[in-house]
């Protein structure tokens, strides 16, 4: 495991994230104009779409990290990849739920097939749901990390291909019903959207670092305990029985 400290810069990052989120909220509710067609409902767009973009970005970034893991044979990259996928799946749940709320409010149904981004997201989400079952069904840790990385790379390459396919299919059968992201946004909406996107990205990076720090610390602790227990085993016999209890307690406290 690398000797890098994951927690470095975490406080600064957290503060930046809080500021960005506060700014985004302020812009969404006090600055961005009301959409002519959709009305107040359109405000969901500022939380739903950034979450989707960041989640998909997270999946693709995890693929790149997996490549680094395989090439450098450095397990810390596998951990980074795992946490990124894990976070993106959680965000993915948020995307699907907020997407359903938006669909219900806009079209009266909890799900619509018209929105290619939402549909392609569902497919990607279903794929990544198999990541953890696949990972944890392989017992050998080194092989587990390797196979997980192969999956992350293949799935990461799949994300853009899938999006293209769904988009092509939609363009063919339904004209685009709602075209928000990118070109057609008026200036104030675009600014709000970009700030929201930036805040979501910062949030992702902060939470990612946070979980990495926690996992890394747990790993260091485990190694330390093993070394201490081995040291305890080498001690002379008279303190042997006294030692079993704290060591056993430590083991059971952490399981």
């Amino acid at each position: 495991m690398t000797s890098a400290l994951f927690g470095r810069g975490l406080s600064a990052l957290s503060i930046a994230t809080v500021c960005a989120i506060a700014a985004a909220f302020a812009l969404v509710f006090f600055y961005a104009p009301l959409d002519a067609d959709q009305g107040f409902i359109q405000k969901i767009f500022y939380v739903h779409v950034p979450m989707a973009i960041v989640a998909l970005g997270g999946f693709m970034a995890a693929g790149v990290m997996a490549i680094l893991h395989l090439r450098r044979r450095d397990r810390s990259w596998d951990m980074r990849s795992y946490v990124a996928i894990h976070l993106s799946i959680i965000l993915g749940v948020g995307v699907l739920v907020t997407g359903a709320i938006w669909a219900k409010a806009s079209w009266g149904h909890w799900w619509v097939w018209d929105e290619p981004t939402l549909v392609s997201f569902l497919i990607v989400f279903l794929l990544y749901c198999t990541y953890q079952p696949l990972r944890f069904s392989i017992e050998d840790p080194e092989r587990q990390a390797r196979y997980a990385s192969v999956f992350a790379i293949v799935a990461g390459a799949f994300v853009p291909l899938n999006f293209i396919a769904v988009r092509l299919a939609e363009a063919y059968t339904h004209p685009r019903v709602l075209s928000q992201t990118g070109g057609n946004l008026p200036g104030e909406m675009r600014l709000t959207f970009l700030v929201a996107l930036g805040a979501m990205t910062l949030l992702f990076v902060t939470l990612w670092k946070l979980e990495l720090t926690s996992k890394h610390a747990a790993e260091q602790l485990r190694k330390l305990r093993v070394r201490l227990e081995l040291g305890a085993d080498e001690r002379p016999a008279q303190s042997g029985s006294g030692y079993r209890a704290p060591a056993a307690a430590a083991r059971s406290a952490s399981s």
Partner: protein
Amino acid sequence: MPALPLEEAGKYVAGAYLVFVVLVVVYVAIIGAKVARLERELKTLGDLMEKRAP
């Protein structure tokens, strides 16, 4: 479908943003629990070391 009136729409928008907030808070809580467990284990290790070399 015509835009919903403000009171109706407000509930949906609030719901969506609430989902986002809840996800983040629950996630932080889970990490918090992990950190608490780490702290407990560190304490146990500290006790272990004390017994070894007081």
